[in-house]
């Protein structure tokens, strides 16, 4: 094998890692804040891709990429808030909220998938790439689209991280995640902050969908695979810190890229799950997790 192949596989891993980081961070925001697992995350990703397609380039005179992306983020934020209000909030004070919300978000996911199928049909579609053409350094060739995708993912994640750390609303969100009762006693609006966390998570899913739509064909049922990958990443990395699923996403992306090339495409899920099982056995709180925290 040549060094060019090796570099190409590496870059492929980084692209996947950036995508997984977006998805997994969205999932982790809801998980750490509300303490529930959102199985509709994959459906959010699909919906994001379709909304961007509808607004951005459904036909020749579509409104373009930026308008598509904007519509995708806003629309998914609203869908996330609606999902929280309809499917999670009614069960918030029940003792078995974790189990109930698994069932309700699964139901929500299949409803959303059905709606996507109903509106846009099962035929596969593709978004125009954000930037056309290839970039080239020396012997290394890479599509501009993928480069831009990596840069945008990193920028978006940095922005979300800064929002959680430095803004008053983001700080309140972290406070509610860590101690709901203490946050209530300080007068924070728990319901609104939960809805905001859900909306933020859905927006991140929408952006991930937008990126997936620009490198792969999209169908209404494509949400299952990203959801599975995001789940692997979150388990793999743990949720102790905002950055833990991000590191884990790049590790999982690299593993996937290398195992697709060297082991075989069809064996990749098996390799990933084997890795996940090993992590669960050796370090159940996640590779970048801390021992004392188990959300």
């Amino acid at each position, binding site marked *: 094998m040549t060094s060019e192949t090796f570099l190409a596989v590496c870059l492929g891993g980084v692209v996947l890692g950036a995508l997984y980081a977006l998805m997994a961070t969205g999932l982790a925001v809801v998980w750490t804040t509300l303490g529930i697992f959102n199985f509709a995350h994959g459906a959010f990703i699909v919906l994001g891709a379709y909304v961007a397609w509808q607004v951005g380039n459904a036909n020749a005179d579509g409104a373009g990429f930026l308008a598509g992306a904007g519509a995708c983020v806003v629309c998914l934020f609203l869908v996330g808030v609606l999902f929280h*209000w*309809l499917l999670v*909030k*009614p*069960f918030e*004070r*029940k003792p078995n909220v974790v189990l*109930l919300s698994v069932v309700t978000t699964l139901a929500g996911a299949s409803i959303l998938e059905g709606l996507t199928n109903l509106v846009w049909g099962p035929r596969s579609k593709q978004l125009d790439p954000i930037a056309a053409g290839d970039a080239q350094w020396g012997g290394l060739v890479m599509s501009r689209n993928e480069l831009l995708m990596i840069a945008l993912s990193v920028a978006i994640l940095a922005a979300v991280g800064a929002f959680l750390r430095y803004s*008053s609303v983001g*700080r*309140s969100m*972290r*406070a509610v995640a*860590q*101690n709901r*009762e*203490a*946050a*209530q*006693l*300080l*007068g*924070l*609006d728990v319901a609104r902050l939960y809805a905001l966390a859900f909306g933020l998570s859905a927006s991140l899913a929408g952006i991930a969908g937008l990126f997936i739509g620009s490198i792969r064909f999209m169908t209404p049922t494509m949400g299952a695979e990203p959801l599975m990958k995001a789940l692997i990443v979150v388990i793999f990395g743990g949720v102790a810190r905002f950055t833990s699923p991000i590191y884990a996403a790049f590790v999982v992306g690299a593993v996937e890229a290398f195992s697709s090339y060297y082991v075989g495409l069809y064996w990749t899920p098996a390799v990933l799950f084997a890795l996940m099982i090993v992590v669960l056995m050796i370090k159940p709180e996640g590779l970048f997790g801390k021992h004392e925290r188990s959300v």
Partner: protein
Amino acid sequence: MSAAPLLELRGLSGGYEPVQVFRDVTLSMEAGASIGLFGPNGHGKTTLLKTVSGLIDPWRGDILFEGVRLNREGARGRRASQNLNYDAFTGRRMDPRRVVRAGLIHVAQGNLLFPELTVRETLDIATLATHGRGDAQALTRTALTLFPRLSERLDQKTRFLSGGERQMLSVSCGLIAAPKLLILDEPTLGLSPKLRHELGEAVRAIKKTGVPLVVVDQDVEFLKSLIDTLYLFDHGRISGRIARADMPSHESLMRMLFGEAAH
């Protein structure tokens, strides 16, 4: 007619469904006075205070603060069916945000606050609770002079603080929220005598700034130095009311509550 009492509970009952923890609690606090609650563990003091601050819905009765009712009128909403598990439309009787906005601030028992937030971030969040009642910056400075130890630890995460420092942080948050009435639920729980003394001094200083207190504590001497009226609370109801002048010693209070056999 005199001014409305600062805090008034009328026939308040509540608990954790389906277990009723306290019943028919009626008490009235005059403006400017401080009260204490004293009673055995596990008899509902904390649950009562959580109900007053809106964390749990009261089952019956009313909570009035400065003459304004904090709970919604009417009996607690019950689900139409035990099978219907969906309560998007079941309104709650209390909203903790409304309680905080009215100026009733509750420092919860053994509150660990936010383990992953730094002291500075936690104090910043407390300033959000001020709602224009006071100057949050000035109050933060006051809190840091009362607890100089906290100002050395501003950039540490709460989970690295000692139990005493966390308690100081909790009380500081209560002070920064510019309370009209401050509820302290066992502020000296699990503290060493030295820290207890230090915290007691700080609480007395807070009282001197004109903030009335509701204090729950197991230490009668500590309560004596702070409050005007002591309520005895056991088996989920108020069983006695003692004015400051004839507040007994710890020993005789124990005898009143448990009888001779307890010793």
